[in-house]
């Protein structure tokens, strides 16, 4: 029953997990959080596997879940406002050691959330304006403005880094 599903799914995860993890890290800047995002996205992918695999949209499907899940996380206030609930025992934000994180990546993480996502999707992963807008559920004009502001910031960081 699940043999074929498991087999093709495993092949996909084997081949693309490292890349998906890097996407998640670029989005959130934290490897633990990135692992959580990828895990969540891959479980959802498994459930939808017959449809998504048939359409050849595996990677796009996972990427969308990663990006939107992170959007949802940021938009959900109750996590931080539910006084009296157990505190989430999550490891401290873990990035690369300082010497391994370039000024560019630091600058990327300093961008406002949506600017960062636009830059990652548009200028690292190479999505079009329309695809980026669709993925983030924002207008194409908003994509363009985030893109130009984000790029300007990153270019400034690169220039400073090389001076």
């Amino acid at each position, binding site marked *: 029953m*699940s043999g074929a599903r498991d087999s093709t799914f495993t092949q996909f995860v084997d081949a693309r*997990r490292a890349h998906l*993890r*890097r996407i998640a890290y670029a989005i959130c800047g934290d490897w633990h959080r990135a692992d959580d995002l990828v895990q969540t996205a891959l479980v959802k992918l498994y459930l939808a596997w017959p449809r998504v695999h048939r359409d050849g949209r595996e990677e796009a499907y996972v990427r969308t879940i990663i990006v939107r899940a992170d959007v949802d996380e940021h938009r959900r206030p*109750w996590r931080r406002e539910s006084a009296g609930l*157990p505190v989430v025992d999550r490891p401290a934000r873990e*990035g690369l050691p300082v010497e391994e994180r370039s000024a560019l*990546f630091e600058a990327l993480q300093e961008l406002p959330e949506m600017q960062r996502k636009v830059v990652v999707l548009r200028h690292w992963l190479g999505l079009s304006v329309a695809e980026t807008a669709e993925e983030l559920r924002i207008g194409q004009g908003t994509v363009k403005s985030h893109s130009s502001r984000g790029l300007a910031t990153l270019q400034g960081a*690169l220039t400073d880094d090389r001076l």
Partner: protein
Amino acid sequence: MDIRDEIDRSFGPGPDTRTVDDELQGLLASGHRNLRRRRVVAGAAAAAAAVAIGGTTVLAAAGGGSPSGAPLAGEPSATPTGAATPSPTPPASKPAGITVVRDQEAGMMGMSVSLRPDGKLHVEPGVQVVRIVDNPYHRKAPSISAAVVYRQQGTTYWFAGYVDKNMGGGSANQEAMTEVSFRDWIDEQAPIQGKDQVAPPGSDVGDWPGMVDMQLVRFDGDTERLQPLDAVTMVQQRPHPEVGDSFAGADDRSAVAEVTFEGTRYYVLARRPAGGAPAQYIAVKADDGGPTLDAFLDFARQRYAEGGGGLL
């Protein structure tokens, strides 16, 4: 400057303490578990009480949408509460092959939309049927399948189910999603709609006595408070009861309530997993769950610690 290459070089692969094999095994186990959650196995009519269900379920209110049984705004048709009579003016979107009946008694217990063993689609009064897809899983008569979009108390739900000629059947229900179309969701449920892939009754509930499809309460917005649905009386409730990590982690919203409905006392465990997944509810009759809410919680914690529980 090629910003793509620059970004790509700006960080490495990151720390990796897990082997790929471990990761995959964990993923597959989680995937299998979640697939089982989607299964809803309804036994034969004689065993209707033994409903074994999977977890993405958020079904409509027991008792219908309004206290009087009157339709909500936009309700296309409804018959008075009483005998299971066909709707005299079925919804415009109702395909010819589906017979819709509306009453409080004739459906699966506590379910607002269900396929009865006789192949008729039961819709409780107060539930607004938006759309019906006739036989999406191509079952051969006398077996039948149906998928339904319906609204209740301002929320849109999806239902997909089938009834087999041997009187068995299965269905899945959940809040409508934005990231997946109804048609795609129907397709996603296809693996659970084949007889060879339906889990035997009871296999997924860990001997849990409750009913996942009996929703008596719902979360109050993004809080961990529960609101009783129509005709349900809230006796007491507690946020985040900490039944166990396999039920709800620190990031998930959860709550437990003691309610009464139609003269019967129930305990309801509720959770809304982090990440935007639909809320899930399981109701247990107090006769089966213990004399007090504390006793029920002890029972639930023990079951989840043993790897059982109604929402795995």
